[in-house]
């Protein structure tokens, strides 16, 4: 096989497109494993094609950005038009409401119509059911022989007792569920205390600088309410660059069995200190 740059390039193009015949494919694979010239050409080819791919993706991205601008445009017009609601949406807290209510105006109109229609259908169905129940009520109010009525009353009592027993077991089940540990990682069940670091390692002055998210996140973490702690710890990490929040976030994912995120976060440069790594490595 000749090794001119043009030839290598042509062969790699065919290789990349899966158009090489099987014998040449094996030959090229061997060259890519052993020959530095082929390896360099392959790296360069990959970068080039990835760049072309990026360019295409960015073209699509710019199409979406234009669309986004189109979608946002009615918002501006509404705000400039003196909509009394615009005053309400000017505060940062109400940005979320503003986004939801204004950007999707045409869709929300459709939704309103759909909802009205569906609510009407629902009402009609309930009305029918109500009429059916009324008819049933009339039947039960009809005079019946005395023996029949006693039988009905007995059945009602038996039904009520059965419902009471079932209800009791359901409440017991619910109570058991509430007392069950809220995490599934076995190591953490017995060693959780080792992972509470803010009371051991941080000075009092640092505690005074707690922000609300951090405080709530830490408290929920200590209470082992991991699902609830996640958003607060995320927010604390993002807003105040608090490494311990990120550590707790990582442990929470481990506790909840989110192993993928646990592994990803664990490998983050932020958690490479010896203490964090020792603790995290203990969690299987």
């Amino acid at each position, binding site marked *: 096989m000749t090794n001119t740059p043009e030839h290598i390039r042509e062969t790699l193009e065919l290789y*990349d*497109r899966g158009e090489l015949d099987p014998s040449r494919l094996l030959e090229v694979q061997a060259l890519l494993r052993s020959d530095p010239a082929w390896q360099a050409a392959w*790296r360069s080819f*990959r*970068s*080039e*094609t*990835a*760049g*072309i*791919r*990026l*360019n*295409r*993706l*960015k073209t*699509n*991205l710019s*199409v*979406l*950005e234009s*669309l*986004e601008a189109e*979608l946002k445009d009615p918002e501006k017009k509404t705000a400039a038009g003196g909509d009394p609601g615009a005053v309400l949406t000017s505060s940062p807290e109400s*940005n*979320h409401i503003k*986004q*939801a209510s204004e*950007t*999707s105006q045409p*869709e929300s109109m459709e939704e309103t119509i759909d909802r009205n229609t569906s609510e009407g259908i629902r009402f009609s169905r309930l009305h029918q059911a109500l009429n059916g129940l009324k008819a049933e009520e009339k039947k039960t109010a009809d005079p019946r022989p005395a023996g029949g009525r006693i039988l009905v009353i007995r059945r009602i009592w038996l039904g009520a007792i059965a419902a009471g027993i079932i209800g009791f077991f359901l409440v017991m089940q619910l109570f058991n569920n509430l007392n069950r540990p809220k995490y599934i990682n076995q190591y953490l069940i017995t060693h959780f205390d080792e992972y509470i670091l803010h009371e051991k390692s941080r000075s009092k002055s640092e505690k005074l600088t707690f922000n609300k998210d951090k405080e709530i996140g830490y408290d929920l973490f200590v209470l082992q309410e991991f699902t609830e702690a996640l*958003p607060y710890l*995320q*927010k604390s*990490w*993002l807003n105040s*660059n608090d490494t311990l929040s*990120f550590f707790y976030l990582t442990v929470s994912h481990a506790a909840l069995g989110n192993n993928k*995120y646990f592994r*990803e*976060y664990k490998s*983050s440069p*932020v958690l490479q200190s010896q203490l964090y790594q020792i603790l995290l490595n203990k969690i299987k």
Partner: protein
Amino acid sequence: MHRDTTHIIDRIRSGDEDSLREIYREYRQPFIQWIKGEFFCSDDDAIEFFQTAVVILYDNIITGKLTELNSHVKTYLFGIGKNKAHEWLRHRQRQGVHSDELLINYLHEENPEVDEADFAESLRAVDAGMNQLGEPCRSLLSYFYYQKLSMREICERLDYKNEDTAKNQKYKCLKRLQSICADIKGVKV
């Protein structure tokens, strides 16, 4: 609205540009509300995540990674968005989310053996080079190297007389691109 997912995949593959816009319009609002609730990010960041997710969905279809969907498009799209948001959280890029960076990270995942900074530099150079090339070179190279269309299909799309003409044109475009990229890298050094 119920969406036939196979139909969407076919439309995107055949180059129907409206399909992406439709997906964007349909899932934009639910996605933004959902991702903001999950990650406490701003509206702008949520939009960047969403745009990146839609573009990655497109890429997965074009590169053949996604040939059929077992779940709804919405589930798939939200899954990509969630992964990108976690990635962002892990790197904690406080200056905000940038689709460009998310896309470069995404492409680097397939080439982990290359140094991330070098890879990003090469990609940016080729991207800038492609923009300088202009049409029809840009489309021609994209059809051949990214969408992996055959020369016959390229002839049909770009109105070339025959496959040899298209091949020659492709060769010239590639040489021009390589020369522009060398200039861009040279300027940077």
